[in-house]
């Protein structure tokens, strides 16, 4: 082990755990400041997320969203691209899914609609990411700026579509009509009846998310395209030397990234809501950034980080319900702290851990 290097289990296990611990300690202090017992709060948080079937169901449901958006951000990361537009891509992807469901739900069973909905979500999400990707590749417009802007454009576009075009006649709520059975993804509570998922909306999209993790893992580490994406991300000059077109890789990577984000709608639009509604992405696109950072761009890490954020979402809601002084906003603060420590301050503890391991390893070498 040379200097400054950490064993993988430390890099991928101990460091994230330390970051998490720090986030929870600070959160605990905040809870103390507002006069509540932090251990009580933790108890409700964990119980709310994992203590009973319905809680688990919700945790998995949220985690499903984060897996899709986390993978989207991670794939772009591997090419050195910072895709902040997961939110907008997921939102527009939901439109593609909704259009497929609206077109097919009355004629075919859900399992016929499902693959087309996947294609619809992926194509629409990819299309939304294509423009920033193309502008970056051809014109050098910074992708961070353009993808952020495209989130706003997506939002405005969807408001227009939902309140003017997709809204069923005679209703006041800006959403599409409800899909019939042919546009509804089975809920796990109806599939695995032996386990009590309560009324939670976790659905088959969870398994789609896991499958997509495998696909992304294969793509990044086992295909020629993944090799090119990683080369380009790690050393653009070497990629040019190898004859890898920067324009092509930038555009293709953004298409894949957008498609992954677009799939998030399968979980919400086709799984939970069975209709398209305003702001269904609900910030999951941004959580995906933290998830990808915390998961170190690896699907396994992304699954674990998604579970954590799913836990915080669900447990947080439960906590706000059980201890009213800890409001919904407090939960957001706690989540923000986790994002802060796991994402922005990711490397804060690294020097200390590296120093610790250096001493440890030189001791063993001498012994």
């Amino acid at each position: 082990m040379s200097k400054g290097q950490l064993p993988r289990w430390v890099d991928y296990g101990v460091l994230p755990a330390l970051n998490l611990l720090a986030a929870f300690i600070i959160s605990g202090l905040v809870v103390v400041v507002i006069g509540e017992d932090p251990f009580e709060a933790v108890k409700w948080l964990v119980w709310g997320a994992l203590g009973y079937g319905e809680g688990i169901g919700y945790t998995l449901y949220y985690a499903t969203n984060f897996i899709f958006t986390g993978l989207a951000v991670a794939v772009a990361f591997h090419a050195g691209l910072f895709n902040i537009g997961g939110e907008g891509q997921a939102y527009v992807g939901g439109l593609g899914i909704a259009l497929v469901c609206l077109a097919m739900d009355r004629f075919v069973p859900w399992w016929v609609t499902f693959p087309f909905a996947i294609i619809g979500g992926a194509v629409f999400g990819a299309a939304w990411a294509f423009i920033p990707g193309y502008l970056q590749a051809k014109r050098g417009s910074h992708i961070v700026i353009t993808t952020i802007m495209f989130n706003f454009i997506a939002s405005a576009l969807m408001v227009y579509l939902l309140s003017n075009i997709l809204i069923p006649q005679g209703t006041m709520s800006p959403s599409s009509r409800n899909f019939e059975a042919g546009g509804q993804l089975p809920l796990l509570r109806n599939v695995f009846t032996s386990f009590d998922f309560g009324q939670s909306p976790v659905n088959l999209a969870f398994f789609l998310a896991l499958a997509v993790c495998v696909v992304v893992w294969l793509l990044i580490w086992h295909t020629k395209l993944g090799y090119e994406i990683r080369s380009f991300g790690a050393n653009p000059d070497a990629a040019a030397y190898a004859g890898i077109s920067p324009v092509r890789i930038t555009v293709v990577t953004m298409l894949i990234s957008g498609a992954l984000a677009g799939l998030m709608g399968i979980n919400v639009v086709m799984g939970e809501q069975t209709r398209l509604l305003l702001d269904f992405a609900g910030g999951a696109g941004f959580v995906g950034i933290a998830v990808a950072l915390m998961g170190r761009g690896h699907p396994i890490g992304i699954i674990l980080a998604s579970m954590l954020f799913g836990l915080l979402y669900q447990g947080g809601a439960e906590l706000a319900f059980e201890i009213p002084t800890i409001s919904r906003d407090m939960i957001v603060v706690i989540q923000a702290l986790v994002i802060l420590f796991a994402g922005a301050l990711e490397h804060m503890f690294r020097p200390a851990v590296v120093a610790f391991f250096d001493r440890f390893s030189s001791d063993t070498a001498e012994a």
Partner: protein
Amino acid sequence: MGSVLCFSWGWGNAFETVYFESRNEIDAQVIDLIDQKGRATVAESNVPAIELIGVSKSFGPVQANKDIDLVVGKGSIHGIIGENGAGKSTLMSILYGFYHADSGTIKIDDKTTTIPDSKSAIAQGIGMVHQHFMLVDPFTVLENVILGAEGGALLKDGVANARRELKRLADEYDMTIDPDAVVGELPVGLQQRVEILKALYRGADILILDEPTGVLTPSEADHLFRILRVLRDQGKTVLLITHKLREIMDVTDTVSVMRRGEMVASRKTAETSMEELAELMVGRSVLLEVDKPEVEVGKPLLKVEGLNVRDDRGVLRVKDVSFEVRAGEVLGIAGVSGNGQSELLAALSGITRAESGKMELSGEKLDLSEAHDAAEMRTKGMSHVPEDRHRMGLVNKFAEYENSILGYHREPKYSKGMFLNKDAIRKEAKERIEKYDIRPPTTEMTAAKFSGGNQQKIVLAREIECNPDVLLIGQPTRGVDIGAIEYIHNRIMDMRAQGKAVLLVSVELEEIRSLSDRIIVMFDGNVVGERGPEATEQDLGLLMAGVNQEAAE
């Protein structure tokens, strides 16, 4: 007991002579140093500036420095030479406080000391000029020099003082420089001067230079050596780390040779020779002259006509260059770096688009003003060892086996459908590791962790084993140790013997002259002359400097 040794030298105390005898090899060195110099600077202070006794450092199982003893006389230029990975940089990092020795004693000016960090090194009068400059490009010379030593919250006073001090230093050591010039716009030679001034400004008495000439032109290097001599004559101590024998011979007073983490010898430069040092470095005799057998020259495999290349900023960097390279021939392109060689290689290899120019590659005509890419050129039988393996030739964080297919990853033998055939890639990588003696012999270590010579071998294996017709090779031995240099030169000669066309770009004249069949010289984007390998260094040097241009045409 280490401290006793030095005291005994200083005062010649009989009691301590007992210890003195027990460290024969060291005291002999010290005496050597003093005897050989006999200069006023040494005579006035007969303690060594630096003394290391039994310094060891290991990284896990790898022992980077083994029981190192080193004595550097005050006011001398001491060279430390060794192959890459011999432990030179580790030793210097210990001196500069980047690493901590596992055991051993460090003495500065005869006082046992510890150097926990670079701040402490600076406080003890040690200054370091890194191989890669630690400068802020948009800042002026003055701003760079005072960076981190501003002296007080308000910049103004510090700046005025620094300006005076900088002027004094520049006058004293003959290093004129415009304090208000923007560093990023200075040539590398002057940037390095800023680094030296930075160290002197912080009160350095001992100056460590890590491979200082790697980025310099020959004349810049000469100038650097003049400065080092002035510094020495003013009583400063200079430690010069290099793997270039010629520099050691040119500029140092004493030299220590490192091999595999050990200090194998110390010599007075005047009493040793390049051959002896080379042998000490690698532990066996090295053939410095390349064996260049007669090869029958065939038809041209690479023809370039009227090539013009503009860089990103719109500057014409290659101007109407034409040449041809025939089968079984090495065409050397000599020139001070930055005279269009890099742009020439980039355009020929398809990385950048030329403004105009035609190329004939193994009989196939190509218009270089059209878009090509590097992958296409490879399929047409041209491979390319780039000038800068870190920037271009390797993806440092990829494993060895992943780097072994860079640029060839689309070839059918490496893939199964859209997937990479990792078994096949690893198997071939293993074979190449064996064939090219890449050390350590592992396919899984990241490229960054290999030494320079082994990194270059990874690139070379990749570009030669694909059996190209034409090999473009830039700076093949930059930052590469002697053992590997010999190996690389032999591989190039093998390519020549196999009837390949080799285009060699190097700033090392010696290398160009010993490998090439013909030499063309580039200056300011133009080809200013062609010579045979028998051309003298002076002749080529003049062409490279752009003088005598008319005579060359």
